[in-house]
């Protein structure tokens, strides 16, 4: 299934921007490796968000200027970061106590598949690859709210929003909202509920690239991003 070229798909930057709008002021947030990392730069001015990384740091900022990187000061993606005033360093067990103990408000993660019941598969695509889970299972089972940020379909056009995950689960019933390049979709009571769709696409068009029935709660808004 392919999407009409008139459809105003969001770029990765725009996807990150849209997700960032839904981060509440004062939140403690863990951003997954890759696309979710872009979210930090897009948080609206005036909202104070504190970022947590699994490897023992709360309150970090952007990558430092070239030449000032410290390989001992990195995020979970092993990318150099900086300490903001008021940062705290701690060991891995304390870091995951924050995660497992429900102290983080939000985690934004990538996905291979999200099911309509909130199941998430984002760590193992198929049997061949070397399995690697990292902190994803801890995050989804511990953080208060889990958002997924991902393209609506795979590179070859298969739905990532599905009725049931065929890949190995990261967690069962853990996702509450999905931000894609085509839509913003809530997960409520075992259903996908469409909140916003990009310009040029209607619900039927979105349904055609989605692997489970879409519901609405009023007319979906327009998904747009600067």
């Amino acid at each position, binding site marked *: 299934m392919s999407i009409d070229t008139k459809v105003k798909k969001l770029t990765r930057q725009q996807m990150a921007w849209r997700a960032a709008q839904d981060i509440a002021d004062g939140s403690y947030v863990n951003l997954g490796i890759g696309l979710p990392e872009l979210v930090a730069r897009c948080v609206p001015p005036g909202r*104070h968000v504190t970022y947590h990384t699994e490897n023992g740091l709360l*309150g970090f900022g952007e990558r430092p200027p070239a030449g000032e990187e410290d390989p001992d000061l990195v995020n979970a993606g092993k990318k150099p970061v900086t300490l903001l005033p008021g940062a705290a360093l701690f060991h891995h067990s304390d870091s995951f106590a924050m995660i497992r*103990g429900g102290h983080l408000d939000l985690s934004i993660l990538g996905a291979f598949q999200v099911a309509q019941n909130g199941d998430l598969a984002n760590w193992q695509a198929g049997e061949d690859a070397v399995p690697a889970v990292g902190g994803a299972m801890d995050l989804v089972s511990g953080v208060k709210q889990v958002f997924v940020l991902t393209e609506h379909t795979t590179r070859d056009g298969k739905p990532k929003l599905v009725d049931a995950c065929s890949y190995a689960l990261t967690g069962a019933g853990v996702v509450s909202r999905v931000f894609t390049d085509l839509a913003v979709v809530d997960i409520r009571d075992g259903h996908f509920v469409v909140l916003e769709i990009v310009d040029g696409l209607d619900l039927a068009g979105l349904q055609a690239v989605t692997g489970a029935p879409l519901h609405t709660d009023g007319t979906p808004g327009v998904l747009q991003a600067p």
Partner: protein
Amino acid sequence: MRKPVYDLAGAVADIPDGATIMIGGFGGAGAPVELVHALIDQGARELTVVNNNAGNGAVGLAALIRERRVRKMICSFPRSADSSVFQELYAEGALQLELVPQGTLAERIRAGGAGIPAFFTRTSVGTPLAKGKEEREFDGQRYVMERWLKADYALVKARRADAYGNLLYNMTARNFAPLMCMAAATTIVQASEIVEPGGIDPEAVVTPGIFVNRLVEVRAPAQEERLVAEGVRYP
């Protein structure tokens, strides 16, 4: 994020009757005397209190108990030279006691903060304190299962807080406070000073601010032992 800064009365204003409250301190070291006195003034009753001890003299936790605000104490060592208030009310049956070995108490509180609903420990195996607890063998050793301990509020005393709630403590006044900060839904901290973010070395932070909800500055906090020695009674 910047944590709201309250005065003493404001910090404890919403604590309801029946709340479970963890109070930092080992004897007087780390006892948040001013916060406990504010709680006495506030009037909440039927409290469950978690502390290593059960108060000394006629101030702080002992005064809270004496004013009959405490329904149940969860502690390891309710007996001391100056703990007559607890002993009297316990003897008359006005107070329940859940006695927990000190290390098990600490670990149960940490477990509450770390999302660990239960764990196994050798401590108390074969003793009366293992009664009613599930026992299990691992690698030929017997262990008992212990459940996490959480609270609605924690009251703790720090030496320094920054505006984001990062904390440093003074010497052995640290004791249970970092664990209680993790295990309470709302952690209220009285700090001798509140500094701007950057005023605590990130490498030396003991309690990261994520575990802290409210700050109160108490610049020259009372030391419980001194109040007891002076015979002070509150209120």
